[in-house]
């Protein structure tokens, strides 16, 4: 158990000093996966080569060769990221046998720093969902309460870290898919500024919103992992050429003079009593540490759900057009009933290959982009999106970071919202605007409900100012010093 409680930074330190071997670390996690994942279902595929990679790394260190910034650290990768030679499914039947011929830049960067991919994690199909119930490989469970969802769409990554099946994981966040599961599973999850991390090799959902980021046990590991995966990539023209700062080394708990904005539109009756209490306590804490708390206004907040579900579905309907059964992915079985035309060939393949939620969103996006509706929906949403971003730019003139809850409440029960998509969508209202505006945002554990379920605090900062967000999260983490562990570990 001791090994499983080490942070990534501690593993790197111990490994480089020769106090622990990579095979011991990887072995301990593989054993724990064996023990717990039948219940949690956080992995879709385990990396059969993880131990071999660990052996090679141990040999490299023993030969005195320099090792990387994440040397010996197992990493669980959301199944949205391509891993060369390793099945990558996006939790969809349509990609159930897809073996990418290349790795995502994020995966290449992690491996270049000697992290060891331990497996591919469960998620909502094509990252469309907030509960990891929309997976072709069965739902993932929350380690704090097996009757509850881990959140989503990066629910497998969150559950894997919370259940100590991997010290760190990578998630993707299109509308809150890193921050919300991090909140539900009591871990740290960070979405960097849009353009910080390469999207090359990440299965596209909504290209103007998607961003990959770390899911970890603490803020230092999140900063360290984000440093490794960030940076300009020539294969993704939307990545920024800005240099990646030394976020981990620059972490500071000092909140004196930091201006913390409280978005007034986020504090509504929709917040559960426990969530409101957690926020109030965090506000008191940052004030006691010398931060100045100021109210800020984001007037277009209530429109976020509409904006997001128009823009994300429009982009998805276009991105998912590539799954046509011709070059890769599953094709419907035409052996006994050949298609009458090319349309039937596509339609049957896609109708059988995609799950319910994915079809729903493709249709919504197709409708919003169709002739006669494009101006009223897609164009209008993009115009209002600019107004929403202006809200943030204005608000950041009077504060350094914004503090709010990640969600209105803690993890809900499996099956509770699955039949009502609109209510599931409305649940995301506090995380969507961060993606629409391209801002960095993260979740840090802030407290618990009466039943002992974790509640996350969301910290958002200005474009490319991740340090401000990380510092406030770091101060909250150190100050609150929460020690509770998930039920499955007790």
């Amino acid at each position: 158990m001791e090994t499983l409680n080490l942070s990534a930074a501690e593993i790197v330190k111990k490994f480089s000093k020769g106090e622990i071997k990579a095979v011991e670390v990887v072995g301990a996690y593989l054993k724990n996966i064996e023990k717990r994942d039948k219940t949690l279902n956080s992995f879709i595929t385990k990396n059969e080569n993880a131990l071999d990679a660990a052996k090679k790394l141990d040999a490299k260190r023993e030969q005195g060769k320099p090792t990387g910034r994440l040397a010996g650290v197992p990493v669980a990768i959301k199944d949205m990221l391509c891993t060369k030679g390793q099945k990558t499914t996006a939790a969809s039947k349509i990609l159930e046998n897809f073996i990418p011929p290349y790795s995502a830049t994020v995966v290449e960067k992690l491996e270049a720093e000697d992290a060891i991919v331990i497996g591919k994690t469960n998620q909502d199909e094509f990252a469309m969902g907030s509960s990891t119930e929309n997976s072709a490989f069965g739902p993932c469970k929350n380690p704090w309460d097996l009757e509850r969802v881990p959140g989503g769409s990066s629910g497998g990554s969150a559950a894997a870290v919370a259940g100590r099946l991997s010290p760190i994981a990578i998630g993707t966040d299109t509308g809150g898919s890193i921050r919300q599961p991090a909140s539900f599973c009591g871990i740290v999850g960070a979405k960097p500024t849009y353009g910080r991390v390469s999207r090359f090799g990440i299965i596209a959902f909504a290209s103007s919103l998607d961003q990959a980021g770390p899911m970890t046990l603490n803020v230092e590991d999140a900063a360290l992992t984000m440093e490794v995966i960030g940076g300009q990539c020539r294969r993704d023209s939307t990545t920024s050429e800005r240099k990646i700062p030394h976020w981990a080394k620059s972490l500071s708990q000092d909140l004196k003079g930091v201006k913390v904005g409280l978005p007034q539109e986020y504090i509504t009756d929709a917040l559960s009593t426990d969530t409101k209490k957690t926020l109030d306590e965090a506000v008191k804490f940052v004030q006691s540490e010398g931060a100045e708390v100021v109210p800020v206004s984001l007037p277009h907040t209530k429109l976020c759900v509409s904006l997001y579900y128009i823009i994300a579905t429009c982009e998805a309907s276009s991105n998912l057009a590539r799954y046509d059964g011709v070059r890769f992915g599953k094709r419907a079985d035409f052996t006994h009933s050949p298609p009458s035309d090319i349309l039937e060939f596509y339609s049957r393949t896609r109708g059988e290959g995609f799950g319910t939620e994915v079809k729903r969103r493709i249709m919504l996006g197709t409708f919003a982009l169709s002739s006669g509706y494009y101006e009223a929906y897609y164009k209008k949403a993009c115009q209002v999106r600019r107004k929403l971003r202006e809200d943030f730019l204005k608000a950041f003139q009077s504060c350094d970071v914004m503090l709010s809850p990640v969600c209105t409440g803690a993890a809900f029960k499996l099956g509770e919202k699955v039949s009502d998509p609109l209510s599931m969508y409305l649940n995301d209202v506090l995380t969507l605007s961060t993606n629409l505006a391209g801002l960095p945002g993260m979740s840090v554990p802030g407290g618990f409900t009466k039943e002992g379920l974790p509640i996350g605090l969301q910290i958002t900062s200005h474009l490319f100012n991740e340090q401000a967000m990380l510092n406030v999260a770091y101060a909250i983490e150190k100050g609150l010093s929460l020690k509770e562990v998930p039920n499955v570990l007790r």
Partner: protein
Amino acid sequence: MDIKKVAELARLQISEQEETLYDQQLSSIVNYFVELEAIETKGIEPMVTPVDLEPYWREDKKESTLTTDEALKNAPEKMGNLFKVPPVV
């Protein structure tokens, strides 16, 4: 919303049961979008990407990426170095 037409445009074969379900669900979602109508957007440039990045040049040099075998490896059906599809005309 004409669900049949949208499904056809999206190249999705859906069952009658799905058609009824999506009809109800998508209508209630689209009704929710009505709130955007009240927002004044005259003259506002649509924002299609969140970060304004400068385009950059890269060197025009060849590099090897995937081999034919690698590119064909995931094909549902292939013949020689071609993707194979059933007859559709």
